[in-house]
């Protein structure tokens, strides 16, 4: 008892001996410090006479180069290497600095930066609902004299701002970046398949301009298929692979554009700065995916579901060549395997869905006999009949689409995503349609 008492008194003494000093370890109150930090960041942002170069790495690993100039009145003007428009035309929007958990820089109306975050896949080719996982709300991590480090608050995008020189700003304003992005000439190659022969290997290349990735497909001496995908970014000369392609002794680090060769219809490029090469069109894949047509058909057949195309056919370099999107009320095209049967034939439906009062409606379409699957990886469609009444306004689009689809050479199918296929005409690879779910 006495011991307890002694301990109790001792404990009391020790605790009451603690210092009561509750001065902050900082010399200023939190609000004062955050106001200072914001003012400092704002001064730094506006202080760069030629703006800032920004290197943006999204959470998916895509790398983009931007150029920002922060002006008075919460305005920012920017260039971006997303496409030739964003690289060639400055766009002004607004920004503000805000005290969130950390001082934050918010691009608060739509700008080129928001293209990366837009949840509409039509804008950036990403997934619906998440886009390319960019950010436009950043916490300001460090502010140094000639660089600022930002981290995206939503998707952890990493941004490094470097103070730009007059030459840097000029490279954007004078269109050098737009030219570096002139892989737009790729679209002059009308064929779906594009080939780049380097050091004795012929690579089939697929660009995803917006996801900033490039895929090389090739077969080795033994005929085995190889595939290599890397993120890429631009510098003011051309395209740089984030991860170089290593194929035995021959590798690929950079590809820069040397312009379009109109005579031969090919694009001249330099590989690794000094090795001249050409990118040209091809009518078939280096090695067709033999199972793709059956896989494409079976996937939706087993679920009694259908494939959707929002744009219809791309023909000879023209998107939606048959103007299906101009059909009044048009929503999408669909392909529905084994839709129904008539006279003993279970037919597939290629239908036209339109927006009707309060919902979607499937009004007309063409019926196709069960497709033929060839051993060399093609699918061939044969027309069976017309379902419903084709409105006058849709007749041309309907007939043209049927003509392409009924081509006796059939189609190759190229899987480009989990539930996404490109169906490419085997006749000349100049017509294709994207099916997705």
């Amino acid at each position, binding site marked *: 008892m006495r011991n307890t008492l002694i301990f109790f008194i001792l404990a009391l003494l020790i605790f009451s001996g603690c210092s009561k000093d509750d001065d902050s370890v900082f010399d200023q109150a939190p*609000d004062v410090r955050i*106001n200072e930090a914001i003012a400092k960041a704002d001064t730094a942002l506006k202080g760069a006479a030629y703006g800032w170069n920004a290197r943006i790495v999204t959470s998916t690993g895509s790398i983009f180069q931007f150029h920002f100039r922060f002006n008075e*009145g919460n305005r920012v003007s920017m260039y971006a290497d997303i496409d030739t428009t964003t690289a060639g035309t400055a766009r002004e929007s607004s920004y503000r600095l805000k005290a969130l958990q950390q001082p934050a820089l918010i691009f*608060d109306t*739509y700008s080129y930066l928001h293209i990366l975050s*837009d*949840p509409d896949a039509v804008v950036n080719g990403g997934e619906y609902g998440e886009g390319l996982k960019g950010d436009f709300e950043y916490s300001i991590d460090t502010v140094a004299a000639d660089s600022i480090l930002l981290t995206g608050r939503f998707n952890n995008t990493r941004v490094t701002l470097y103070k730009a020189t007059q030459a840097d700003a000029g490279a954007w304003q004078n269109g050098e970046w737009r030219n570096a992005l002139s892989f737009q000439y790729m679209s002059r190659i009308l064929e779906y398949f594009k080939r780049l022969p380097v050091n004795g290997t012929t690579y089939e290349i697929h660009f995803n301009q917006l996801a900033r990735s490039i895929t090389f497909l090739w077969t080795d001496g033994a005929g085995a298929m190889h595939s290599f995908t890397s993120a890429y970014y631009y510098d003011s000369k051309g395209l740089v692979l984030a991860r170089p392609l290593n194929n035995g002794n021959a590798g690929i680090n950079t590809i820069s554009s040397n312009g379009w060769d109109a005579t031969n219809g090919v694009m001249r490029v330099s590989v690794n700065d000094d090795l001249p090469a050409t990118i040209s069109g091809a009518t078939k894949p280096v090695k067709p995916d033999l199972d793709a047509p059956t896989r494409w058909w079976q996937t939706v057949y087993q679920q009694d579901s259908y494939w959707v195309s929002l744009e219809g056919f791309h023909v000879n370099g023209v998107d939606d060549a048959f103007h299906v999107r101009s059909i009044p*009320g048009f929503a999408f095209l669909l392909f529905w395997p084994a839709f129904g049967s008539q006279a003993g034939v279970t037919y597939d439906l290629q239908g036209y869905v339109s*927006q009707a*009062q309060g919902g979607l409606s499937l009004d007309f379409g063409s019926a196709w006999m069960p497709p033929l699957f060839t051993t060399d990886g093609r699918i061939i469609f044969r027309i069976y009949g017309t379902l419903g009444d084709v409105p006058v306004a849709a007749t041309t689009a309907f007939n043209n689409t049927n003509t392409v689809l009924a081509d006796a050479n059939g189609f190759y199918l190229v899987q480009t995503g989990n539930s996404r296929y490109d169906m490419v005409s085997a006749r000349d690879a100049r017509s294709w349609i994207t099916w997705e779910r």
Partner: protein
Amino acid sequence: MNRLKIYIFICLLAILGSCSKDQPENVDNIPGLGGDTWEPGPIDFWIRDSLTTPFNITAKYKWDQGELEFNRTLVPPKEEKIIPVLSAIKKVWIDNYVAVAGDLFMKRYSPKFFVLVGSASYNPDGTITLGTAEGGRRILLYVLNDFRIRGMSDYVPQDSLNVKEMFHTIEHEFGHILHQTVLYTPDFKRISVGMYTSNWNNVSDAEARADGFVTAYAMAAPDEDFVEMISMMLTEGKGGFDVIVNSITGTSPNGITAEEAKNRLRQKETIVVNYFKDTWNIDFYNLQARTRASIVQLIR
């Protein structure tokens, strides 16, 4: 006696006068207190002059995550879309109500706060949300970046769906404010009694109509039914509503005949029209004609 009063008064003075006059310490300039600020530009002036000054309505078009859901990927609107959207809202919704009910009515009852978002809100079930509202005060409008009306260079006919859907949302929410202010007759709830269901999202509009509801969402509750009626009748116009009613054929799985479904929709229509007349002294058919005409101007 007087002297006593004076003593007490002096005493009081002394006591109160001795109160500490210390200013509270450590009150700093708290960042963001009173809302975000920026240098106002042309859009801010337009909102102030066209909406805030006459109707005490404001619109937030700059990004503020705090106004929105945190588990959605969204983007702010394009600056060039904001004035077209807001002026369309003014023409279709505000101006028409002002014309038939007077501007005092509008100033008193209109929702006061619009939040504008550039993209749609993509739901995990594959649907997208085009607009929401809460408490009769705040309305969120999505998909501003796809807002195209007749006369814009890239307008295509299916854009009319976005435009109509936007006004559907606004008229719907405004309908809630009206019936929350003065309730409609209980007769309305008896028309489709027993058929309201939380399972409305698995019902198509066509199926709902066969049961005597104007949209699937109208099956959610009598209040929703009432405001969906208002909203559909206003945005589709009298002709469009008649088309909806007359399109009903066959007997629904719930045993409602086409005749009965049409009859129920007509009963609801009558109650809505009488409610506007008796409660707000508004000629509903006049409002309907005006609203539909304004929408048609935007989409045709």
